[in-house]
């Protein structure tokens, strides 16, 4: 069973991520802001991070930057999900993949499965 950390401040969207992750047989932990994301990674290293970009406290860009800067977390794949269509910047900042909102659920599931393989 793979462990996925979902960083998403919009409860309805976090919930549907969680639903699909669990349906695929993974374990999902949901946090609603950037600081909580970094704390959660420290507590338990996830196999994948689904990272929204517009977040309270610490935004997704800053979270990705810190994750990539620390040797312990640099190799955790990050799937950025945002309403901002900024794929190039996302990939340049170390994201393994990028999903623009609104997204098709099957795209989300396919990307997650590819990154967890």
């Amino acid at each position, binding site marked *: 069973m793979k462990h996925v950390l979902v960083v998403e401040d919009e409860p*309805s*969207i976090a919930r549907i991520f969680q639903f699909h992750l669990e*349906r695929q047989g993974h374990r999902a932990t949901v946090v609603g802001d950037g600081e909580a994301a970094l704390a959660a990674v420290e507590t338990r290293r996830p196999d994948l991070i689904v990272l929204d970009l517009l977040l309270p*406290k610490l935004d997704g860009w800053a979270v990705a930057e810190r994750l990539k800067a620390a040797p312990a977390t640099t190799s955790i794949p990050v799937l950025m999900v945002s309403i901002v269509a900024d794929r190039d910047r996302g990939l340049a900042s170390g994201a393994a993949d990028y999903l623009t909102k609104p997204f098709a659920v099957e795209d989300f599931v396919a990307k997650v499965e590819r990154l967890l393989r």
Partner: protein
Amino acid sequence: MLDRVIGTLALGDRAGRRYTEEELVLLEALADQGALALANAQLHARLREQVHAFHQLAQTATAAAQAKEDFLVSVSHELGTPLTAIKAYVDTLEANPEIDRWLRAEFLGVLKREVDRLARLIGNILDASRLELGRFAVDATDLDLHTVVGDVVRTVATRRLVRYETCGPLPVKGDADRLKQVLLNLVDNALRHGPPDEPVVVRAAVERGCAVLRVCDRGPGVAAEHVGELFQKFQPLGRPGVDQRSATGLGLYLSNEIVKAHGGVLRVEQHQGWGGVFAVELPLREEAR
């Protein structure tokens, strides 16, 4: 040669001698040249003025275009959030007909909320545009603000805990729908900014001939330096470090305009033990003062 008189060239000879034909021709040519030079100078000055005016116009247009661009970015982000949820839940329900009825009910509940939210956002955008065009109407009648609060609290309290501390009837003159819109917006903000397990409190009072409603949450409140920009259009950053995405940036602006149109005041207050406290003050009807 110009076809109009723009000045006079007066010449005379001290000895009283008359000018010869040749001299007059020469003087006429000189006057024409002078007139042309003068007309040119006037034209230049006018042109400079026009260039300056055009420059100013261009600057205004650029600022307006920027504001429009900001508006569109802000609006598409705002609409994008409920839209994302709606699409994801519809996709999910469609692709998974076997999910049990509890989950189905939960997902339909989310869909309903997100559709309502989308409708509210669109309503806010239309209102903001009506305000800008001066077509925003407030239809005031005699009403009891206490009833309006009751309606709003009942609507919201199905989802989250909202406590209403009443002080009895509050007769005012106002537009019930618009005032509901203000309260819903304030309560929604409070729910969003306050901790999920703490109720939002709506406290009613009569102060100095006015009905005062205070919507209080136990969130982080509004930093003093941000209070000024809170009621401007597209300022969803009112509570820095807490929320950079959820407000339209229109809700407080519209609420403030609605309250002002009622001859009232919307303000942020600091109260010991509370985070955000938004107070709506509306004049009581004459007979109740």
